[in-house]
């Protein structure tokens, strides 16, 4: 390893001299040339080290697009070498990301690429490594980009960080009538991502810290009690309990039509509710499905402006319905409905 860094050190010294002399273009090209040489020789550790340090030096000298270019190459190396996820690399990625100009066009591709890398080398995190998401969450929060921060916190295991973010997000940008909904939305999404522990912690901290929520549980707001009891019910996993809760709190659940769908998914994941049948049941179910398909299927996610279209962010959902009259079995999915019914927790 010492030999590794000695080689890299030499190159860096040369490039740095170049940069100090103001020859940024030359320095940038030199980094690229050496990188291609290393990478051709399969010297991935050297290549990654060089690119990481090179990108930082360039950005320190306000050469943002050159720095961003090397940052992207850095991720290419990680991808090519199938480097496993380590704290060290996560630290390097988040450092590069933090120093990148938030406006530069490479920043979002960098983020996507980083998450893709972390999901590929680590199959159990197919939506990206939670620690990496956590770092992105922190950085976006510092930049007051709450929306992006929220997305990444939901994919992290940092329930406390997420709760604090949500309190800040809600008090700055939400309506007072939504104080219980901000946390409900987050908890249900965590649960759809099968992250029960983080969901519970997030709920606990949010309800403690939010100035507009009185001490509990039990709380003065029914929706909060619903979530509190739901989180307990997950432990026992009894479908009957889940069904009672959904029934008794229907009015609160209906405040956001999406809760129902999240709860369907949660029913399947935690309470053994069978997934929806493949064949449409009855005329009404069929009609309803067609309506939903129409509304749902136009122009995929092109409108998602805020870059919420990471492919990793999708999770399969479906329309079984513990919540719709418990009697009628699910309005179930026609084939086309099925492909459209994936929703992203983002």
């Amino acid at each position: 390893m010492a030999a590794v860094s000695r080689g890299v050190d030499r190159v860096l010294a040369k490039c740095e001299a170049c940069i100090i002399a103001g020859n940024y273009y030359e320095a940038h090209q030199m980094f690229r040339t050496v990188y291609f040489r290393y990478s051709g020789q399969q010297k991935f550790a050297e290549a990654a080290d060089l690119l990481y340090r090179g990108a930082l030096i360039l950005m320190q000298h306000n050469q943002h697009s050159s720095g961003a270019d090397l940052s992207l190459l850095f991720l290419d190396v990680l991808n090519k070498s199938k480097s496993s996820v380590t704290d060290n690399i996560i630290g390097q990625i988040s450092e590069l990301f933090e120093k990148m100009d938030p406006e530069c066009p490479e920043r979002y591709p960098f983020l996507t690429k980083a998450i893709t890398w972390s999901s590929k080398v680590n199959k159990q995190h197919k939506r990206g490594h939670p620690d990496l998401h956590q770092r992105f969450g922190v950085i976006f929060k510092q930049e007051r980009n709450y929306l992006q921060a929220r997305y990444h916190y939901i994919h992290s295991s940092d329930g406390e960080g997420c709760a604090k973010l949500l309190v800040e997000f809600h008090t700055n940008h939400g309506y007072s009538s939504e104080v219980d909904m901000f946390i409900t939305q987050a908890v249900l999404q965590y649960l759809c991502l099968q992250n029960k522990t983080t969901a519970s912690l997030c709920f606990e901290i949010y309800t403690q810290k939010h100035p507009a929520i009185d001490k509990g549980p039990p709380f003065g707001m029914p929706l909060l009690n619903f979530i509190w009891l739901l989180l307990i019910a997950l432990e026992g996993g009894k479908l009957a309990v889940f069904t009672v809760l959904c029934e008794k709190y229907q009015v609160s659940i209906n405040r956001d039509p999406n809760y129902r769908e999240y709860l369907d998914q949660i029913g399947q994941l935690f309470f053994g509710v069978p997934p929806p049948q493949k064949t449409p049941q009855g005329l009404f179910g069929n009609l309803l499905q067609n309506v939903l398909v129409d509304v749902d299927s136009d122009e995929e996610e092109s409108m998602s402006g805020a870059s919420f279209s990471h492919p990793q962010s999708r999770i399969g959902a479906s329309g079984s319905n513990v919540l719709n009259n418990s009697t009628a079995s699910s309005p179930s999915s026609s084939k086309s409905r099925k492909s459209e019914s994936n929703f992203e927790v983002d």
Partner: protein
Amino acid sequence: RNGNSDNWQSVIPQEWIPVINQDVARQRDQRPQPPLSDAYLQGLPAKRRRMMT
């Protein structure tokens, strides 16, 4: 039709019953949900967001 309503209490932990009963009453008086903020709606997946607005 109400056969269910006695039943539910036997299914859940007993200490939940007063909480739930109180919430059922509260929900009866609950006002309709006012329109949701952009901040809240942006927490939804893109497609869903459009359905709501």
